[in-house]
């Protein structure tokens, strides 16, 4: 149980971040302190070596001038001025006899040098070493050097003061370092906690959403920075998903409704026909209704598939450069009788030069037919529908203008929704997919569609498509 919790902690981002932070801080600090300590130590060592050497040279000169008595005098004087506990001087004759020395009261336990003059390596004039004299608590730095004629001079300095200083320094540095690491640990923990607090909120929200509550959002964070940005992005994504789900539910409801109605009509017509014996002339009418409704259903299904295929990008298309003007003229020709029946003046403003776009002719035909169909459908008898093609620099612009019934402000934002019909009392007036299809096609071709309308006054639809130049 404890182990498992420990294991989970090991993978916890907060803990990881804190440990890394503290680890790096500790390492840096320790290296810095170590360098500082070593520098101080080396400095002391060099200083003592310098002192020892100076004294050795003095005694060397003295020995040449005044012999043993001069050494004896100087040793006593020098040691008293520097402190007999702190330094000592000893002079050994070639036979190992100590022939002169300072006050050795504080230097009990100091052994005689082994094989005095010959103890020096390879005829070097002197040697400096650090030793611990038995019974002493501090090290000593000792120089043994030749004075000539086989005499050996030994000069010793106690390292007591230096060692005290270094110990104090070590104490101070470790105290400081430890404190700094502790502070680092706390700060690291705090920073990690603050940095990941937002992530926990997001995780919590994600869990709740997974359980099915799509309305949940990450609460607005007090924190700034990346996590806050993540939270906003997360919430935006959720809004989008929810909008999609809502529209999908709507579409599903609409599909269900739009499929149910024709099926109901087919079923009712067939059942009525069978209920009682009827005139043979009545049956063809029933059959015709059945076929018409089936065709409507099929058309609906095809159009739905067509739109989804375009929107999801799985439709296999053979793109080519298509001149829009012939397509526009054909479409107007196709719809001319409809316009005439409603006494609508249908006019095309031609564009003389070819105006090509990249697309699939059949799909473009369908797009144009849908827009024209709408314009004629929603224009009252005696109205006017005009179509124009304009070639701009990089765009081909199709304009469909009518003075028909227009679209109210409340309906305008929804006209591209699948199965949305402005006039709900006329469910037979079309599939409700016309503009959805147009929008899907236009977007697929990298174009843009704009609809502006004044209720009761008319509608203006502008489709811009990327133009193929100099093809």
């Amino acid at each position: 149980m404890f182990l498992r919790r420990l294991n989970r902690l090991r993978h916890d981002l907060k803990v990881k971040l804190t440990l890394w932070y503290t680890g790096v801080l500790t390492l840096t600090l320790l290296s810095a302190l170590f360098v500082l300590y070593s520098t101080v130590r080396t400095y002391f060592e060099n200083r003592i070596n310098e002192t020892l050497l100076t004294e050795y040279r003095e005694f060397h000169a003295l020995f040449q001038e005044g012999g043993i008595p001069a050494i004896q005098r100087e040793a006593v004087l020098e040691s008293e001025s520097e402190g007999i506990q702190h330094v000592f001087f000893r002079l050994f004759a070639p036979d190992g006899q100590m022939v002169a020395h300072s006050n050795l009261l504080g230097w009990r336990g100091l052994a005689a040098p082994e094989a005095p003059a010959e103890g020096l390596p390879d005829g070097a004039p002197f040697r400096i070493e650090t030793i611990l004299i038995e019974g002493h608590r501090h090290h000593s730095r000792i120089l043994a050097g030749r004075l000539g004629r086989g005499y050996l001079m030994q000069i010793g300095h106690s390292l007591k003061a230096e060692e005290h200083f270094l110990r104090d320094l070590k104490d101070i540095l470790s105290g400081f370092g430890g404190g700094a690491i502790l502070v680092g640990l706390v700060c690291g923990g705090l920073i990690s906690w603050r940095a990941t607090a937002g992530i926990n909120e997001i995780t919590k929200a994600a869990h709740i959403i997974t359980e099915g509550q799509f309305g949940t959002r990450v609460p607005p964070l007090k924190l700034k920075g990346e996590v806050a940005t993540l939270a906003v992005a997360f919430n935006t994504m959720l809004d989008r998903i929810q909008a999609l789900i809502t529209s999908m539910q709507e579409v599903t409801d609409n599909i269900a409704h739009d499929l149910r109605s024709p099926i109901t009509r087919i079923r009712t017509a067939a059942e009525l026909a069978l209920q009682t014996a009827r005139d043979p002339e009545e049956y063809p009418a029933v059959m015709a209704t059945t076929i018409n409704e089936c065709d409507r259903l099929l058309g609906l299904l095809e159009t739905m598939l067509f739109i989804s295929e375009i929107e999801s990008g799985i439709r296999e298309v053979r793109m080519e450069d298509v001149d829009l003007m012939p397509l526009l003229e054909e479409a107007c020709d196709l719809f001319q009788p409809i316009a005439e029946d409603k006494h609508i003046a249908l006019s095309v403003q031609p564009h003389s030069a070819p105006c090509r776009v990249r697309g699939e002719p059949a799909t473009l035909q369908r797009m144009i037919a849908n827009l024209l169909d709408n314009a004629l459908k929603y224009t009252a008898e005696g109205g006017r529908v005009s179509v124009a093609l304009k070639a701009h620099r990089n765009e081909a612009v199709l304009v469909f203008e009518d003075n028909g019934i227009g679209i109210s402000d409340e309906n305008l934002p929804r006209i591209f929704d699948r199965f949305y019909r402005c006039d709900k009392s006329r469910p037979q007036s079309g599939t409700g997919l016309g503009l959805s299809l147009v929008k899907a096609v236009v977007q697929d071709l990298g174009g843009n569609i704009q609809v502006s309308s004044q209720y009761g006054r008319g509608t203006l639809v502008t489709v811009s498509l990327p133009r193929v130049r100099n093809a």
Partner: protein
Amino acid sequence: MRILIVEDDNTIAHFIEKGLREEGFAVDHAINGEDGLHMVLSEPYDAAILDIMLPRIDGLTVLARMRARGATTPVIILSAKRSLDDRIRGLQSGGDDYLTKPFAFSELVARLHALIRRSTGTAEPTTLTAADLQIDLLTRAVTRGTDTIELQPKEYALLEYLMRNKGRVVTKTMIIEHVWNYNFDPETNVVEARICRLRDKIDKGYDPKLIRTIRGAGYVLKAP
């Protein structure tokens, strides 16, 4: 004329068989690819209607094998697969035409006739007549009795299409596809409006009325 239907769905096959017999064809039916291949290789059919998803040997394989053995029988592929790739694959395997399910029976009949006409190399007529209506395919002149009738280009195209399919029902979809080259049906019934105009010109004031509306199916041009 003898037609072979290779189709594993008995209901569909039965309807096609019945319909084609009523149209005056002699019809045989194979319920799997193996039987179909055997029959098309051993009997001289004028055309075959071939499903793609079939038991034992699939339709495309049947096509490839019969073409490999030198059978030139024209074949209409009848399939629920409707993607562009499927169509192309079907035609590349040796099919002569491709019709997707669900289909209008009258369209199947029209396509069968067109296919047989093409494969037998029937000489292209220069005039078409129905009762006292006559169109000259070369000059595009239309006469009814002694009257010359002026038609707009699309009206002429529509009339020619109806005349070429004289006595057979053509659907709205077939008309819009052949006359306007649209492969979809606009929501508004544009064909009806156009037929109305054509009737005003060739039937109004004349007897007998030639263009008839077959409710739920389409239109037929027929001399009584």
